[in-house]
């Protein structure tokens, strides 16, 4: 077992603490637990997308289309509901569509062996465009009975139901990734595709499946966002992919694939929630907030690259010291 201080998640946990203390200094409202818990409901959709994204990035790919998938499925869900279809059926249809949209990405990447950043950039535009074409720049209201999922709390506590849902999903994802054969396959695919093929991993199927999972998570997020805002618009989830990728990378997942955990992603998400809340309270404008998230994304990758280079050179030094000893 790796020592705890050498795990990438530890850095993330420290960062979470740091942002918490930083936010504490900046604003008097910050340590208010109920306020922070309520603020997490703004990031549930990002969290779900980040769970799927963790699988995708560990398998060595990237999914830029999650925000657009979320937008398209959210619009579809609202359209179906307004067409008089009962919500369980509409929900199943929406989730199925989300899986299918993800599957399209997966097939293009896995079967045609195309770079995922171009494929998902294409679907990023196409799915958003389809949502726009579907809605004609209008917004649709959600039936009142389904609106406002974000204000539901566990009875007698300040814990939002949505947060519980996210945590349950995270635990399921964590178990699948860490304790099942499929999870091992995802790591194997990401750490070296050739060796994975030689080891008998069905690489193409694994890649297709991680994209399906990403689409599935995005469609869940789409329905939750509809309910939270009590309406659907084509712009739902615009720019969400950047927050999701930031959460994954900040949580210690290697952008080059093969390494990463769900725990790390969730910790990083918590940090983003703190950061956004603190910036919100401090009246930081949206442009600065975006710039801050962007810088965070870049810095976390640069820092990891640097650490990796350090450990590589240390290994090399140890090897070069070990060799003469073997010869003599």
């Amino acid at each position, binding site marked *: 077992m790796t020592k705890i201080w050498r795990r990438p998640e530890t850095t993330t946990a420290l960062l979470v603490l740091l942002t918490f203390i930083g936010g504490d200094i900046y604003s008097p409202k910050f340590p208010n637990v109920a306020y922070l818990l309520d603020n997490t409901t703004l990031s549930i959709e990002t969290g779900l997308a980040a769970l799927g994204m963790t699988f995708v990035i560990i398998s060595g790919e*990237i999914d*830029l289309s999650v925000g657009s998938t979320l937008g398209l499925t959210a619009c579809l869900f609202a359209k179906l509901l307004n067409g008089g279809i009962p919500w369980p059926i509409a929900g199943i249809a929406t989730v199925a569509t989300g899986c299918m949209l993800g599957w399209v990405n997966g097939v*293009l990447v896995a079967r*045609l*062996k*195309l*770079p995922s*950043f*171009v*494929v998902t*950039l*294409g*679907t*990023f*535009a*196409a*799915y*958003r*465009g*389809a949502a*726009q*074409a579907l*809605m*004609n*720049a209008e917004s649709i209201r959600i039936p009142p009975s389904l609106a406002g999922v974000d204000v539901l709390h566990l009875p007698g506590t300040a814990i939002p139901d949505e947060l519980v849902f996210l945590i349950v999903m995270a635990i399921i994802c964590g178990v699948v990734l860490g304790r099942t054969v499929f999870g091992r396959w995802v790591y194997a695919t990401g750490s070296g595709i050739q060796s994975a093929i030689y080891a008998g991993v069905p690489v193409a199927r694994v890649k297709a499946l991680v994209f399906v999972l990403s689409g599935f998570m995005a469609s869940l997020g789409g329905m939750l966002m509809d309910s939270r805002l009590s309406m659907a618009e084509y712009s739902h989830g615009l*720019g969400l992919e*950047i927050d999701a*990728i930031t959460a994954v*990378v900040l949580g210690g997942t290697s*952008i*080059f694939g093969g390494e990463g955990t769900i725990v790390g992603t969730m910790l990083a998400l918590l940090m983003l929630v703190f950061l956004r809340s603190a910036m919100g309270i401090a009246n930081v*404008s949206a*442009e*600065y907030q*975006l*710039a801050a*998230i*962007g*810088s965070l*994304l*870049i810095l976390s*990758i*640069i820092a990891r*690259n640097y650490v990796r280079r350090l450990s590589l050179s240390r290994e090399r030094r140890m090897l070069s010291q070990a060799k003469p000893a073997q010869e003599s």
Partner: protein
Amino acid sequence: MLVLVFSAVKDPSFLRETNVQSILQWVPLMVVMGLGQMMVIITRGIDVSVGSLAGLTAILVGLVTRSHTDMSAPVALALGAITGLILGSFNGLLIAFAEVPPIIATLATMIGYRGLAFIASRAKQIDSNQIPQSLIDLSQRGPFRIGGLLCPWILVLAIVIVGLGAFFLKSTRPGRDVFAVGSNPPAALLRGVSVKRTQFMVFALSGLLSGIVGVFYMSRYGFVNPGSAGVGLELMVIAAAVIGGTNVAGGTGTVLGLIAGCLLLATINVSLAVLGISENYQQLVYGVTILIGVVLDGFVKQNAARLRAT
């Protein structure tokens, strides 16, 4: 490909002068930016920051011309090119030397540059009276007319730039290195090509060209809004490059294909407006165009692999 463009242009409803005129004023922006994007894609990279970069450059140049409304057009263009070069070099540094994957680095600078445009302009737009007349003339006047159609100066400039770009890619050493790096990075390294330097160069060049496009944008539209200037241009030029035959897996791409791709997209763009199809479909069109280009690449590659196998 060319047939598609041709038939679209030949369709009588497109032959109205205003439509062709607006294509002529739009294409220069796309080809110049597309040239940079194509070089980046040939090296297996991608640059999604170009739209924001052009917007930020337009804002920065606009802030200068606001107090110097008598500035001549060449000076403004040079200013834009230098600004773009600096911003593009920053992308290049992140990608080549800090080893951040291109998509992540340029995604971050895409939102970063957009944010800077807001911050630098204090969220105020550059109005037409703050842009020098000589600059506006760049897109509204030209050296000659063909049958009532004006060939604007920006088109002339774009042709010169693209010609230089084609020469650079075909006949100079750094130009050939771009292809070498894209088709097989380890082999390029063994052959003595500096992969990092080439990567840095293409992103710097993409920035420089996008900076010029930022100034073209000022000239074409006569105002610069920090929120909308250049938004979505990245998708448009990526679509144009990919449908024009640039291989997304790196290694191949031609200037002629790029021009054809730009003409196709510009024609589609204008025809959508003519046919009364709302702007709501534009993004769908870019997305589907990228996907078609990508899928064609994929099939070609698979066939090639099968041929090699037999």
